């Protein structure tokens, strides 16, 4: 058990992880984020003491493998480039917790969990691009690597308070998974503190994400 915890810690420090930069908010801000796709459902409850990091709970249920990941998660905004007409961000995301599974030969087995990853994005008011990767160590339950990239374009330029729309294409790579490579066209809408995304992958899997900040 102790060696597993040490391995999880080492893995966390060495490997980078997936991104959703969104949990990092303004100083004193909170974020609720929920994601659903062909691989997992996840829930993030985060608080940002400063604009440079957020901390909270991240829970995931991986559908095919039937395991839960429960973690205390941290998102660090390592660097933000605030340019006159664009913005770019580099995030470090990591978490520690437990993995739980009763799938197959696992019988309510609990393993220590560690994950880590990096994410980078750039956007102006017309174009968006991002890349993120994450490594997960969960003992015998899961040891995996995931990466994802997105490009997007805004069909119109909205003003503050308008509904903003993005047309995006997401590419995911899940080595070792049944669906190793996946393309998902999606639409993103947001206004004020609400963000909503929906899409359908090439394998007919539904993507549905939402974010609320307060």
């Amino acid at each position: 058990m102790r060696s597993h915890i040490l391995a999880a810690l080492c893995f966390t420090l060495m490997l980078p992880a997936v991104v959703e930069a969104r949990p990092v908010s303004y100083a004193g801000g909170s974020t609720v984020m929920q994601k659903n796709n062909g691989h997992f459902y996840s829930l993030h409850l985060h608080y940002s003491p400063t604009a440079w990091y957020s901390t909270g709970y991240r829970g995931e249920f991986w559908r095919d493998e039937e395991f839960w990941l429960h973690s205390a998660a941290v998102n660090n905004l390592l660097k933000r480039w605030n340019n006159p007409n664009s913005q770019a961000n580099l995030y470090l995301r990591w978490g520690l917790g437990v993995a739980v599974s009763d799938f197959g030969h696992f019988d309510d087995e609990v393993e220590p969990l560690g994950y880590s990853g990096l994410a980078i994005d750039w956007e102006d008011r017309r174009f968006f691009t991002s890349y993120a990767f994450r490594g997960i160590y969960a003992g015998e339950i899961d040891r995996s690597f995931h990466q994802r990239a997105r490009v997007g374009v805004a069909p119109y330029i909205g003003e503050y308070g308008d509904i903003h729309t993005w047309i995006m294409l997401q590419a995911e790579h899940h080595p070792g998974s049944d669906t190793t490579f996946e393309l998902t066209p999606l639409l993103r809408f947001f206004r004020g503190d609400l963000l909503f995304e929906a899409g359908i992958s090439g394998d007919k899997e539904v993507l549905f994400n939402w974010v609320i900040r307060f």
Partner: protein
Amino acid sequence: MIRFILVICLVLLPLSHAAAAETEELVEMRINGLVCDFCARSIFKLFEEREDVQKLDINLSTKIVSVHFTERDALSDTEIREIVQDAGYEVASIERKPGAGIDK
């Protein structure tokens, strides 16, 4: 007598309004990195919670945040920059317009 009081009130009302406008200040900040509603909301919320802020306007096209303060020099340039940094962004420039009233 009533007419006299009414006349006095009519004369004093605009004067008191002008006096209040004299103490107000419009601060226009150009913000680097202001590219989306999420970014703008962060800045909006941190100014909105202040009691000396009367009105806020954000223009994503010009990247200008306009804050109407009830008092002149309610915040120094340094304090304004710190608030914007707390939201995660950077102030490129600050322009002050003392006495600028709010479009009702």
